[in-house]
């Protein structure tokens, strides 16, 4: 089994002295490639911080994080940008689409700068929204906006897709549709999906479930079988 990420003694401290907040307290984790990994944990448990460091949005205070053979802790800002550009995609709770670009153009925003992208139409087709490509975000529902965000994230064919509360702002039916798309991406493209969520039931669709507590890995469970989003109790 190949690993996407390996971390050793990963520590993140915000602030200094009395005001210091320890978001991560020495995290050791191996993330296998091609899996769906769900990270669960209370607010402040460090799951988003871990996701941000692995995604190249933030830096660890101590310890090391490897993406394949690359030590993320040693990359410059410029190299981190290139890392994000080539290898990883992001999906956020509030979609973060460019309101001034149509669905198709939002996807092209990424395909224009990626090294080996799929055609924008194909990415939109993957999320079932090719017929909405000329619509602006204001003309799309929340679920549709999130699916465009996923299409945008996968269009560059990243090795890893980071999702921070991707269903947080959606109702259950729409949320299921979005999870279906993520599962599809994982199955069809072999993309590793790293998802942070509050909704424990979503863990049932993961290959692996990481529970975090007070900045440490609490436990890691491997699901022998994965439920489809339709089977998940919401």
């Amino acid at each position, binding site marked *: 089994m190949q690993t996407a990420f390996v971390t050793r003694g990963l520590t993140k401290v915000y602030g200094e002295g009395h005001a210091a907040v320890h978001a991560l307290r020495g995290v050791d984790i191996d993330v296998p490639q091609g899996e769906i990994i769900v990270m669960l944990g209370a607010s402040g448990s460090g799951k*988003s911080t871990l996701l941000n460091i692995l995604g190249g*949005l933030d830096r660890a205070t101590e310890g090391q994080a490897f993406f394949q053979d690359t030590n993320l802790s040693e990359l410059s800002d410029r190299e981190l940008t290139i890392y994000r550009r080539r290898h990883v995609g*992001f999906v956020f709770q509030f979609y973060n689409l460019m309101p*001034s670009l149509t669905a198709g153009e939002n996807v092209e925003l990424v395909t224009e700068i990626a090294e080996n992208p799929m055609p924008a139409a194909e990415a939109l087709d993957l999320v079932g929204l090719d017929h909405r490509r000329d619509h602006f975000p204001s003309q799309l529902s929340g679920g549709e906006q999130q699916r465009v965000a996923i299409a945008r994230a996968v269009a560059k064919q990243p090795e890893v897709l980071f999702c921070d509360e991707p269903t947080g*702002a959606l109702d259950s039916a729409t949320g299921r549709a979005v999870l279906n798309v993520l599962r599809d991406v994982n199955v069809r493209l072999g993309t590793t999906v790293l998802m942070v969520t509050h909704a424990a039931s979503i863990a049932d669709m993961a290959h692996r479930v990481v529970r975090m507590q007070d900045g440490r890995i609490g436990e890691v469970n491997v699901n022998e079988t994965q439920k489809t989003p339709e089977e998940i109790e919401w």
Partner: protein
Amino acid sequence: MVSPLDTKLFRDLRRMKAQAGAIAMVIAMGVLLQVMMSGSTNSLTETRRAYYERNHLADIFVTLTRAPESELQRLGAIPGVRQVEGRVIGGIRIDLPQETVPIQGQAISLAETDRPGLNQVHLTNGTLPAIGSDDEALLLEGFARARGLNPGDRLQITANGVRKTLRVTGLAQSPELLFVAAPGELAPDAARFGVVWMRQDALSAIYGMQGAFNDAVFAQTRDANTSEIIDAIDSILDRWGGTGAFAREDLISDRFVMEEINSLIIMSRSVPPLFLAVAAFLLYIVISRMVQSEREEIGLLKAFGYTSFEVSAHYMKAVLIIAVAGVIAGCLLGVAAGRWMVGVYTQFYNFPFLVFRPDTFSFIFSAFAALTAASTGGLFVLRRVFALTPAEAMRPPTPPDFSKTLTFKSAVARMLDQPSRMVLRGIARRPLRTAALSMGIAGGMALSAGMTTIYASFEDNIDLFFSVVDRSDATVIFTHPVGDSAATDIARVPGIFAVEPAREVAAVFRNGLRSHRGGITGLPHSPEITRAIDASVRPIPLPDSGIVLSVPLANKLALAPGETLTVDVREGRRPTLQLPVVAVAESLLGAPAYMSLPALNRALKEPGRMTVAHVMFDSAEKDTIVSTLKAKPAVAGFLVAEDAQASLEKLMNEGAGAARYIMGVIAFVITFGVIYNAARISHAERLRDLASLRVMGFTRPEAAFVLLGELALITLVAIPVGSAAGYLISLALAAGFSSDLYQITATYDLASHGFAASFVVGASIVSGWLVKRDLDRADLVIALKTRE
């Protein structure tokens, strides 16, 4: 106990200190200018009034040939006359050892008494000449300073053909000599006109005025009718060669001072409101944006149970704190700048003391203007606060609707990458906001371009005057009207290659109730050296009859070609002439009236006379020419064009004109403030999009393109608009700066507009860089989680 809302208010202000500071600065600049301009105008007016009052400046003046002292009693008996004093005044030539060009001057008598009278001198150094002394003199301080003379020094003068050595006992200033200019000079110049005061008996002896006087000054009672007194004086002095009494406002020195004060008043009424308006407009834009960005917090506060009114009051406080800070800073800086400027003016105008009196109204006016602008901007936007329900405010905002903005046809689409489309659609979706930002920058650009154009116009006008209107290298002034053979005589001096006779005649122009004390310049039919020019800078030939008026004179007298002007000549036989106005001439300096020399001499019944000669010479021979001419008895003085040009430039740069440099600096500060704010606004609006781009793997420059591209486009649109508006502003400023003394015509000066445009571009680059620096520092994750 500070309420939590107020704590929030102060933290918010601290957070946005750069932008709040920029807004406050723009307001402060508008207020500064208003306070400074009206404060210095007020102070100058007040200083002038106080000086005249303390030193008992006369209300009415008259010069005559010679009258016995017994006439003073008759003059004093005129109803309304409170006090009268007879004086002896005469023209002198001052010979300084190192100076080849003779210096013209004037000797004024001091009564043989210590009792203070009218037109008291203000002794700045030394003592008064002893009573009864015949070789002691006071010297005008401005002249002494310019020539490095001090009490105790000796001074050689020639008065009425008599050479005399005087001992300088002291230096003095005088309220009737705030400005001194040699006869025929366009601009006052302290160095080239000297005034000495001597005791009356000594001066009477020189001029043959024992028991007589040739000048009288009058103080009138409070409610007296000046023009009736003047008529009575003229009827008494007519037989003694009176040249016509005139009121204080026609005193040359006071006219210069009033011209300067008036041009300051016009400037202080026209320019600062313009600056304040631009500042107010900018404030409105920025405050709208600030309140809009607090949407979520507004919802939260309402959800807690704060009323719409309380929430509005909270934001209004922030707006007013910024505005009030700007107003206070502006007032303080304005008073400081006003003080400094009045100090400069005091030197320039030769006031012995300075009354600094800021204009209370200007504080109120500018504070009112700034606060109104700020609160209007705030109120406009706070309407939306009232409309917003808490739930609505706290829901993630629906993405702004771009579906009705630019769609790109496929051909165009291929040329534009996605970031470019973001820039274009961002601009197109809210044309009003884009226009507002663009107009803000254009406003700053317009002020800057207007000011720089005015600088250039000042220079151009002086250049034009000395290259087209008056092309002489020097003007020779005779002590009295001489026969025109003098011109031929001068032409024989080696080195002089052109001479043109001319005649200056003092006169009062009348048209109905309007009148002007000035003079007629008689020139050859088609002069080559000194000419009248029309609006297209072509020389106007002077016809055999009639008069050509300059634009300011024609305006003042409300006369147009074809109409008739009444002229009371104040010299010789003093005829009253009815002259048709035949043309109106452009005048860059002064308010002259031209006639053909033969026609003028005919009207005066003195054929073949001249009082000045305009000459062109080989500058290498200047010194020889000067000493040859100096030796000629009828030559009173010699004006060198170069010196005249230099003193004019000095007048324009140091007088009221000095204010334009301060205005220029302020215009540029405002422009920068506007642009920096525009950049900040774009940055605030785009922060989330920019963070998203960075997360997707766009490099910093690539992400900054979206932000700075918009700023660049807004700036590019602003430049032509600002340039056009700047042209209009320069026209308005030119009108404001123009006076009877000099007229400024603003043209579209490419270099000035180019400079202002470069400044705008430069300010955009700096602002862009400052904002980009913030963008580079922004925390991606936090930026993404803020909803809007």
